[in-house]
């Protein structure tokens, strides 16, 4: 097995790219598209995504911070809701508070997110995050 623990010598730009996949009906909320390649900031400022934050979110084109908290699943859920979700008036179909709507399974690189620290999992360049709704399975 090839071990590749250190990512290539600091190719560390301000953004990281991820593969986000939706299934089980989640894709209907995100442009009816199963797979998305997204670029999100490597760091974020936690208060900026707090539900009490009065300031409207910065546009996704705003310059990404060069330091702060490493982007985690908590941030990704917020980011997907703010920037990728089709119907901004129905966030409850995707998330509940800062976490995911119950009944949606998250796999990070094919592993149950419960094994990866759930919201605290810090995202790495190239991670694959799968959101599958179990709510419509018949």
């Amino acid at each position: 097995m090839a071990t590749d623990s250190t990512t290539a010598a600091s190719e560390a730009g301000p953004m990281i790219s991820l593969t986000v996949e939706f299934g089980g009906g989640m894709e209907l909320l995100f442009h009816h598209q199963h797979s998305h390649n997204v670029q999100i900031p490597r760091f974020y400022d936690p208060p900026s995504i707090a539900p009490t934050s009065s300031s409207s979110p910065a546009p996704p084109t705003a310059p990404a911070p060069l330091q702060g908290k490493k982007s985690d699943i908590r941030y990704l859920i917020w980011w997907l809701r703010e920037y990728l979700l089709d119907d901004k008036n129905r966030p409850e179909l995707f998330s509940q508070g800062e976490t995911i709507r119950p009944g949606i399974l998250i796999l990070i690189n094919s592993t149950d997110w419960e094994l990866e620290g759930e919201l605290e999992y810090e995202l790495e360049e190239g991670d694959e995050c799968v959101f599958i709704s179990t709510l419509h399975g018949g």
Partner: protein
Amino acid sequence: MSCGQPAPDETQELPAAVAPAATCVRCSLPPGIVVRTTSYCWEHFHDHFTFAYRKGIDGARTRSRSGRPQDVLNGAKRGTKRSKVMLAFSGGASSRVLLDLLQKNSFTRPDDPSLSNPRFKPPPTFESLEILYVDESGVPGFGPDRTEEVRALVAETPFPFRSIKLESIFTPSTTTFSTSYSTPSLLTSTSTSTPLDPLTSLLSFLSPSTHSPTSLASLHSSLLHSLLRREALSSGCEILLTGETANRVAIQTIAGMAEGRGFSMGEEVGCEWEASEEEGGGLLVARPLSSILLKEVTYYARIRELESLTMRRPETGVEPKKAGIEALVQDFVNGLEANFPSTVSTIIRTAQKLGMRSADERERKVEGIRCPLCGLPAQLGAEDWRKAITISTLSDLKSAAPSSSSTPSLPAPAAAADLPSPEAALAPLLCYSCLLIMQGTLPPPRGAPTPDEEEKVVVLPPYVEEMARRRRRIAEEEEGVVGRRTVSGVEGVRREVEGYLLDE
């Protein structure tokens, strides 16, 4: 607290989640999934999952080997003969996973290269398997026909595929069986005319002003399951398999209680039940996934790369406000499960302790009383019970009498008028839940036309007539033994509930 559990400390937050184990419970590999609180690597998850399936299919397997209850009694089934099985296939993840499990565990093909010892070929658990897809596009809100998509999902499997439209529950029929729901006793009649679109007529009779979305979902499910049972029997299958998971069963348990389905709960949540309605029939309905969580099914489908369709049911769908009890309960159960991973299994284990009416009947060797609409065990007297617990308006009772009297005190002949022929009344035969559906659960809107201004008739599938006739025959046979049940009629009920009547 009555449940015997220590009262939770009010100030305490939800129990801090214990981090799941960082290695598989059975080996030292890194795990891929947590089930309840146990971590598994893929291989050991697969073992655990297959074991749960084997437990779930065991009743059907035994049935396949030993035959129908009547075969067991007279030893008719020979050693190698196995039962034919029908799989109710919706195209969703659960039924797709069930099909995969069946193929891999219950049908061993001689040319299967994955057999560890190719010389040992155990006979398949079942004689054959037929995949049946019910096209529900005829139901308003269900969207287009997806039969071809579903057919493509199973094209790789060795099993024959067949699709049937939900509408065909109305055929073959030479006459039209209908009931007038402006009469509280749901008088029925049979005519020779054929309506153009009986399914839409039946489902649209449930209007939002008099019925909840739950009623629509429930009636729809009665039609679907009646059709599945009929098709299984007519194809010579002795076993019907459906793909309900533990989550679905838990949700059905709670929603079913709310809908007045308590009596037949055992049949609706059990792993399997004997649905045979006729002496010669004999159909076992089994749910092999009923102890498996949707999370497990979803993970298995993902890793095994099993394609499935996204179900877009109007009643569990994307519009929370329009959603019925099931969708509300689903959110409730899933919300609990997120914090208390044993919610679903606790609900199921509790419900399964209720036992089954059909099993009681077999033990007592009596023929079961089945509701003609949903086909599940029914309790006698649901109609009287409902009358007794419902607040009726005086005008309801008045309008029940065709000769509407102008005097405010009810005329005694109303009792007789309500039941011109008890043979024609459907209400006394229905289970409580179906009675609620057919009589409507919401009060009529203000200013709505009174029932006698407009005749309200809905066409019912022929199987309802067939089962109603059968029920009456059983009742007649029993008459000599237990005596005729007193039908009190409107007047008797009116006297009983006089104190509660509201004058308008």
